[in-house]
């Protein structure tokens, strides 16, 4: 996991550069720094619009809709995919 933007302190000074690899040790250090937060690469949200993502799910399950175990998987996957858009 890497930083998508430089991390700055309240004064605007760059504390960590863009693309810095985040390790557990570095995240622990950041807790003690005077910073508001950080932007992380790849976690900004799914690439496809929500409608497209959900209709793709329906298409993939279209031929197996009568199988009860797959119905459970589909329900859980739908919840999961919808959740990806809640924090974007």
């Amino acid at each position, binding site marked *: 996991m890497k930083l998508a933007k430089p991390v700055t302190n309240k004064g605007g000074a760059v504390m960590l550069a863009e693309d810095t690899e985040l390790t557990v040790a570095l995240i622990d250090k950041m807790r003690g720094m005077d910073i508001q937060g950080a932007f992380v690469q790849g976690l900004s949200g799914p690439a496809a619009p929500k409608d497209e993502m959900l209709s793709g799910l329906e298409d993939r399950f279209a031929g197996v809709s009568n*199988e009860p*175990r797959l119905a459970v998987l589909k329900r859980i*996957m739908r919840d999961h995919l919808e959740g990806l858009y809640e924090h974007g």
Partner: protein
Amino acid sequence: MNTGSSNLTKLRARIENINSLPTIPAVLERLLGVIDNPRISLSEISDFIANDPALTTRVLRMVNSPVYGFPGRISSVSQAVVLLGVNVVKGLLLGVSVFDLMQKSMVGLWEHSLGCAVVARLIAKEKGVKEPEEVSVAGLIHDLGKVILYLQIPDRYERAMELAERNKISIAQAEQDCFDTTHAQVGSWIAAKWNFPTALIEPISYHHRPQLSKGATLTTAIVHVADLIIRARGFGFAGDRGLPLINPVAWDLVGLSEDSLRMVISEMEPLLLDTEELTL
């Protein structure tokens, strides 16, 4: 197209003679000598990788990726081989060596394979499997037969892919129609020829029919379920749009509760995002 049993025998002979194929990348050709040798030692396999800088880079990138459980912690090939063991490293070497071929043969197959490896490892951990990395490698190379078929007869494999798309049938059914066999069968021929352990041969052979597994029942069932989950997520492309048939016995054997299934899917997501950057 039904090529008949004598044609199937010819196809098998052709597949098993893959080492002589002119389109085989040089690194894979050398690698097959290593994979074929059932008595190769840890140090011999380390030396083989370490003598090839490109292969070393690929192996280290892969073992430090989310596909395995050691992100950023493995700095040398010898450390990787000791931690993972010869069998896992053999499968891993094959996986990284067919990366280019996967990219060429079917757009999205590499992502599907990586995703399956990630999910298989998460399930294996959840089930307390002793060597989750071995299950992960099985997920990584479960579709090896697709690459081999494409490599041997690319025109016919492209026809099979078109047939699957046009008729909305599974890629395995399309392969059956075009080759009179499937990627699972072809994968099993080649994995047996290369002396892979049962824990890799059976998931390759039976990931669509896990009930046939006798020597690696749980690993095969996990790869079957991981394949379903990653397809359900829509990550990568395995050659067809729909989910394959589920085997209820295998699903029940893996026995993920709803809570466990939710946890695996939730843990999978950031790892999949990380694998998107994993170009070897």
